[in-house]
């Protein structure tokens, strides 16, 4: 009988595996477990066995019955699941929106992070300034022709909207003294046209590094590393003499056009070079205006426009796009 039970077990497994629908399963259940089913048949035949074999075979028979019951139950729930109407899983998921940063923030953050990595801290200053901080302390006396380079919006006789971030140099040196090393990002205001390449409102990033031995060579080294960080290792830089009242010597830094690799294109006006920032060694008169001895300290300063950097980096042809905040523009930055 044990042999027979083994064969029966195999038969049950095959049958249950092969069943396709709940009706077939019910028929199998009646056939195996019903009152006149096979299991009951085996139990009936149990009485005919020798007394000493009965408990052993009875136990096996009970285990088999339990196994068939549980297999049927699990098959039943499997078949039930298959009954649920089919859903197209390729339909789109349910989700919210994710926002977008203004590209100016991306560029400003990247610049801040670069200089912080170089050992700079970050400082801020007011947007409403006095003539002293915006001009005189920076070696720009009244009626100096260089005031034209920074033509300002006035709120009163002495109050104006800062026309560059350089006043932060004065404020921070007054507050913290030297040595010092920081950058100062923020909006500045200039009386200028508002068209594709000019804006009366823009973001500037000022840098100042003062110590006893900071030289023009460090100015070149740090700003060259900056240019390569922002525009890629293959970018070349050049420094040309320039003029700012608060630096001497003064320079302008140009980079090889990253768009055409210096071959000449519309963006660089076919020159292959793009001017990106002004810089120089801090003028001794600036140190004097904050009571620092220019014979003991020297340093460099620079100022750059965030829009200009972003326009080159992302090939944006119109400065007004930054302030329109059109979603079709912002959608492209993440």
């Amino acid at each position: 009988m044990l042999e027979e039970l083994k064969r029966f077990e195999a038969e049950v497994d095959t049958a249950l595996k092969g069943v396709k629908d709940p009706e077939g399963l019910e028929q199998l259940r009646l056939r195996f477990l019903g009152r006149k089913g096979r299991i009951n048949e085996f139990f009936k035949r149990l009485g005919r066995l020798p007394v000493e074999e009965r408990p052993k075979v009875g136990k096996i028979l009970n285990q088999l019955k339990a196994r068939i019951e549980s297999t049927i139950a699990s098959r039943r729930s499997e078949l039930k699941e298959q009954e649920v109407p089919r859903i197209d899983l390729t339909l789109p998921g349910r989700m919210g929106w994710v926002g977008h940063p203004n590209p100016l923030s991306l560029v400003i953050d990247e610049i801040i992070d670069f200089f912080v990595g170089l050992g700079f801290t970050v400082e801020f200053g007011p947007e409403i300034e006095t003539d002293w901080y915006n001009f005189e302390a920076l070696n720009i006396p009244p009626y100096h022709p260089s005031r034209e380079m920074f033509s300002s919006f006035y709120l009163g006789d002495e109050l104006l909207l800062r026309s560059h971030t350089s006043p932060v140099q004065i404020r921070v040196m007054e507050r913290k003294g030297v040595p010092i090393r920081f950058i100062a990002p923020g909006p500045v205001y200039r009386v200028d046209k508002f068209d594709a390449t000019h804006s009366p409102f823009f973001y500037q990033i000022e840098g100042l590094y003062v110590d006893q031995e900071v030289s023009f060579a460090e100015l070149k080294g740090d700003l060259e590393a900056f240019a390569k960080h922002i525009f890629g290792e293959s970018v070349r830089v050049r420094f040309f003499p320039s003029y700012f009242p608060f630096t001497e010597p003064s320079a302008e830094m140009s980079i090889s056009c990253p768009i055409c690799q210096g071959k000449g294109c519309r963006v660089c006006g076919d020159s292959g070079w793009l001017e990106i920032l002004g810089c120089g060694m801090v003028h001794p008169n600036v140190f004097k205006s904050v009571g620092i001895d220019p014979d003991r300290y020297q340093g460099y300063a620079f100022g750059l426009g965030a829009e200009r950097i972003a326009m080159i980096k992302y090939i944006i042809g119109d400065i007004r796009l930054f302030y329109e905040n059109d979603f079709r523009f912002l959608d492209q930055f993440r």
Partner: protein
Amino acid sequence: MRLSFEWLKELLPDLSLDQTLDLLPRLGFGVEEVIDVGIDRVISARIKKITPHPRREGLLVLELRADQDYRVVTGAKNLSPDDNVLLALPGALIKGREIGVEDFDGIKSEGMLLSEAELGIVDEAEGVIRLPPKVEPGQWFNDLFDTKIIDLEITPNRGDCESILGISRELAAVTRGNFSPPKLRPPRLKSGPRIGIEDPDDCPRYTGMVIEGVEVGDSPFPIKWRLFHHGIRPINSLVDITNYVMLLLGQPLHAFDLDRIRGGIRVRRARDGEEIVTLDRTRIGLNREHLIIADREGPVAIAGVIGGMKAEIDRSTRRILLESATFNPEVVRRATRGLLIDTQSGRRFERGCDFAMPPLAAEYAQRMIKGRPESFTDLKVPLRRKRVSFDPKRIGRYLGIPIKKREITTILSALNFRVREVNHRLVATVPSYRRDIDSECDIAEEVARIYGYDRIPSRLSRGAQVGTIPQELRMIRRLRSILIGLGFYECRCFTPISKDALETFGIGPGVVIKNPLNERFTHLRTSLAPSLVEVLSTNYRNGNLDVRIFTIGKVFQPDSPRPKEEDFLGLLVGGRTSPPHWSGDERRWDFFSLKGVLELIARHLTAEELQIADDPIPMFDHYSARIVLGGKKVGIIGQLAQRILTRFGIKEPYYFFEVDLGRFLLRMEEPIYIPYPRFPKVRRDLAFIVDESISAQDIIKAIRQLGGPLLAEVIIFDRYQGGGIPAGKVSLAFRLTFQPQERTLTDPEIKELTEKISSGIELRFRAKLRDKEVDVGRTQDFGGEDR
């Protein structure tokens, strides 16, 4: 400044254009562009024979010699044999038109004689151009005249370079090749005329030369062509010479008609109420600010800026007073700024002119003027040459290069400094024209320019300081990334707005900009709402009605002695809260969804508890409140007034809040980990019926107080009005979560606490506990929000 390459080359014969364009930027002069003004296929020609056209009246047939013989038919008048003219040959482009061979009744004309009008120098010309007799026929126009005009950017410190001489001096210092500057010498004439100077501070040097028997006519063509391409309109031979000398030497000159001057002249400040009619026929009122040249009767010129009509040179002029002077740059600038007069003379004087130049320039001009020089007066304060003493080692330290004393001396000598050594220091005597050189750092720049910026090495700095991002910036960055994560667009907006916007939004008088660019940017904003509504409007017009935007920026308030400026966060929402989905789920932004954003960022970024206080605010409809933090008003929140949105053509509701970040993002401490509680939370729900005028925020606050430290969280999970609730009342259901720190709470303890809370609320708010408390069971949940 515009400057012709050919003129430069007269002083620097070895120079090529490419070399010039390479050197100028290295010296600090940015090249804006090079304009080619040359004309191809135009040649100098000499008239050999003139005959009338056999069949056409008024036309002449000319036989000309140039590189070969030509025959030209012309209608020009007053031609004589041996006249030198400019002949445009077939193929030449004149005023955009190509010259061809034309047939005039059987006679072929092989070109055209050019007039000044055809070259654009004057609007109307009387006849064809006559070249000076010494010009040989058969020379191409482009070999005779200026063709390459370099547009240079000259920084305001280099007034000395606003001339051919100035730029050529700079180039000569680096090329060290042939340099033949104009020969300059002081005049040797008898003394006179009478000149007075009121204040030598205003006018440190004034020279006047009297020239008699002058003849004023038309300038020769080459001078006119040259002036025209340096931005100066040719006037007459005399005025043209003064301008020509200014372009060459950088010294502005002015000629007065001496017969129109009454008495001697005096350089003095104008008296209030004095007037002058300038050469451009403008009447200008003067005052004590203005320095003038005056005769006995009154002003004849605004010193260094513009001459007066009264003593104007014209073709009848016979005697002149030629002025060559040095004026105080600041005084000149006050005049050009104050009177808004921009002249080439004013531009040079306000940048500072060479103190040594006035007599030399006068003499140079006199040599060009047809007439008899009579007398010369030179009034000046004693001339002191500047000396700069410097440490040559410091120059090397400043530039980061090892440079020897000898090289520094060589460089400075090339720039016409005289250098002496005094006790290991060098003393440089500065050329009279370099008004920009005052100290050691100026010397460093001179050395660097000639040494070459390119040759200075690049070294990454090694600072001892560690770079840090300040807390306030870290907070702003966190805020930005949370909002972007929540689906918001970050906007950057102008802080100036229009007066109209201030009025529309009802946000006060604003801070007035005294010299606004235009009517769009007249005031500094006092709220971020106008900025964000403009962004809304831009995108709405493009069909984006689902809007989630924020901006962080300055907001200003009028105050004394200066306006206040504060960093604000502004946020605007409207439309759907998530993209349309096939399942049909859809929510739209409303006041409470916006408030949820505010609460969420407050929970993340501030330490204080957020409160809302109803308050009618002009820019809001329906929902309008102030945001209160720690008892202070820090912002506003509400639904934007339909009256405002309608102005932008917007029909749907949009919601806005703004907060003062200075007060909102309070300094957060570094987190210190507190072991989280290991004992189970207990939740109890309590529902009260209260008067609908009572604010939920006050009840929550009271429950927190009553619950004490064990009460971890209170939320409102149901609000109900209607069936079963008396009119004017509302049912509010609160879920309280108790979190013991030290042991498991017993049932009697929980019961005692909830009873204390419910009776307290009933008493304080005249509320009625609605149901018996419901035990929602102990949970094994240790996580979740702990507030």
